């Protein structure tokens, strides 16, 4: 066991398996060529409830590099994979 106790792991949302839950730490939009800046990706995501500290559950990820179905604040959202890769979450490993 290389990870002990409550060590925290920050990974993109896409790293979660179906059914796993994480806590949003940050959204990395706007970096790297301004992706998402113009249409306010970060703000949109937060407006849908994905603010830092929020619990997110990945219900299912669609095949062929498809979108993720997530549960956040009691609502069910579909997120394109490119977006989900920019959302970082923390999984608490026991």
């Amino acid at each position, binding site marked *: 066991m290389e990870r002990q106790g409550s060590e925290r792991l920050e990974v993109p949302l896409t790293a979660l398996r179906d059914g796993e839950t994480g806590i949003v730490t*940050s959204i990395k939009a706007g970096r790297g060529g*301004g*992706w*998402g*800046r*113009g*249409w*306010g*990706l*970060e*703000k*949109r*995501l*937060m*407006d*849908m*409830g994905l*603010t*830092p*500290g*929020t619990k997110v559950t990945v219900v*299912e990820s*669609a*095949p*062929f*590099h*498809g*979108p993720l*179905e997530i549960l956040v*604040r*009691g*609502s*069910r*959202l*579909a*997120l*394109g*994979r*490119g*977006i989900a890769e920019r959302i970082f979450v923390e999984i608490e490993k026991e």
Partner: protein
Amino acid sequence: MTGRKLVIALAGNANVGKSVIFNYLTGLHQHIGNWPGKTVERAEGTLHFKGYTIDIVDLPGIYSLSTYSLEELISRKYIAVERPDVVINVVDASVLERNLFFTLQLIELEAPMIIALNQMDMAKKKGIEIDTKKLEKLLGIPVIPTVAIKGIGIFQLLEKAVEIIEKGRMAKHVEVKYGWEVEERIAKVTKMIGEIQFWYPPRYVAVKLLEDDEEIAREVNRIDPQIVSTAKKLANEIENLHGHSCSTVITSERYEAAGRITREAQKLVSPIKPPIEERIHTLTTHKLMGYPIMAFSLLLMFYFVFTFGDYASELLNNFFYGLEPLFVSLFGTGIVGKLVWGGIIEGVLAGVTIALPYIVPFYLILYFLENSGYLSRIAFLMDSAMHKIGLHGKAFIPVMLGYGCNVPACLGCRIMETERERLLAAFVTTLVPCAARTVIILGLVGQFIGIQWALMLYVFDLLIILALGRLAFRTLPGEPTALIMEMHDYRMPHLKTVLKQTWFRVAEFIKIAFPLIIVGSLAIKFAEILNLLEPIATVLSPVTVMWLGLPVITGITLIFGVLRKELTLIMLAALLGTTNFAQVLTPVQMVVFTLVAMFYIPCIATIAALVREFGWKKALFITVFEIVFAISLGGVALRVLALTA
């Protein structure tokens, strides 16, 4: 009886039943147009209640009042500037927290409001119980529980709205409080604003400046740039304190407030077994099962629409052409008679026999699927496929519509988030073989060469869409967006709302398409009467005969095809004097002709839709591009096929 005029605005998230409430309130007295100069829809209606004439404005369904989307900006400005007498905030009881996030923003706008706590039945099914009295107290706003789909609570809603207006300015609602370090800075900015009058309340302006809201910063900058720069500095301080941008901090805290209220007002009892809606959801988005279910549903839909459409279209045609002798006896066969019948009446007929039989059932099913929630599942399943042409899952819906008719498909591109995305999607939909093109593909290639060749043309069309879609995606400046979409719980659609939505879309289609179809058929009829068609065909012959290897008269049929594409085939039969095309065209000619007919121009109604959505320039560009493309493609196809033949 005062006869006083009141204005009530409906605001809320998408898919919360807002339009159902709107329909209940306004019945048949509604009017759907656009917000001035915008492509955002504006639904308005009137009703009479207790001696008042009440104007109901249905604002677009949105999740926030920021300014990244036109819908949000329009809603915010409307509430702040036009100041409706009361705002009815429609809230989905089954997703309370996210909905209250929006409610809190309305509260910050200091609009007089009441809450319609809708879909109480769905919430209960999911094991969510809400104490409305408590919610009322926590928010300081009247809360009326409703089940809009059954009309429950609508009357009380109206009563409450009128009561609030009659009482004058409403009871004080709570203030949304942020952490002290934020509040401190809000106070500083508010103080600087002091007596300056904006459309928005001072505290709201302060909060929005800290949130780095472009529109408000611009407005304040015009009056006092000092305030904006101070707010920037203060926002940076907050960012340093929290390690997140100030706008993130404020949004988070607003959501926390919504969460706190939600936890206090709602009680969760887990349902005994997962409701049926949940199981349908799992099945229809399933990795394996989802796709065949979708394919089957779509095939069923097209089968139904086309079967019904063919039948109804023939009935209508027979009926109208049955009137022709009567018409001839009235107007004679002189120039006037020819112009009126061949130009105007046939133009209208063309519209009617397409619009009514195909577009009506198509929209009906589509809206049914949309309101039920299935369309969002389809968008979910098709997201990765649509990424191949640089679009995301939602774009599949207009593309799918395109297989019926390109006109609604172009209009349907409004669901895309940015102007760039709308244009890309619309361009792609004009390449989709619509019902009229299907007539040509099946009637010419399918019947005289073989169905497998017809199917190959469909596959080829997909490849063209892929290639041109990618090309457009690469060349059009701007950045791509991606899928962020709510998948609300499955529910039974409200039939009256579906009917009404269908009716408005059909009316819109008629308004856009008919004038140009009629003008177009008049122009062609004129050319025919003046014997100009054959000279035109001769002028076109370098292209049609030398480059495409087709008979001269195809020049004429292709001109008619601009009106509606299946006319290319109908005219071909008329001019060649036979419907047995095998006698007059070689298989290669048939393929070339069909290819050209598929791509050579969006039909005149589609051009009209493009003009309306994107302006003359872009519509013209797409049209010219497709003409050049189709002719080049046809010529190349001729030479390639000649090699293999």
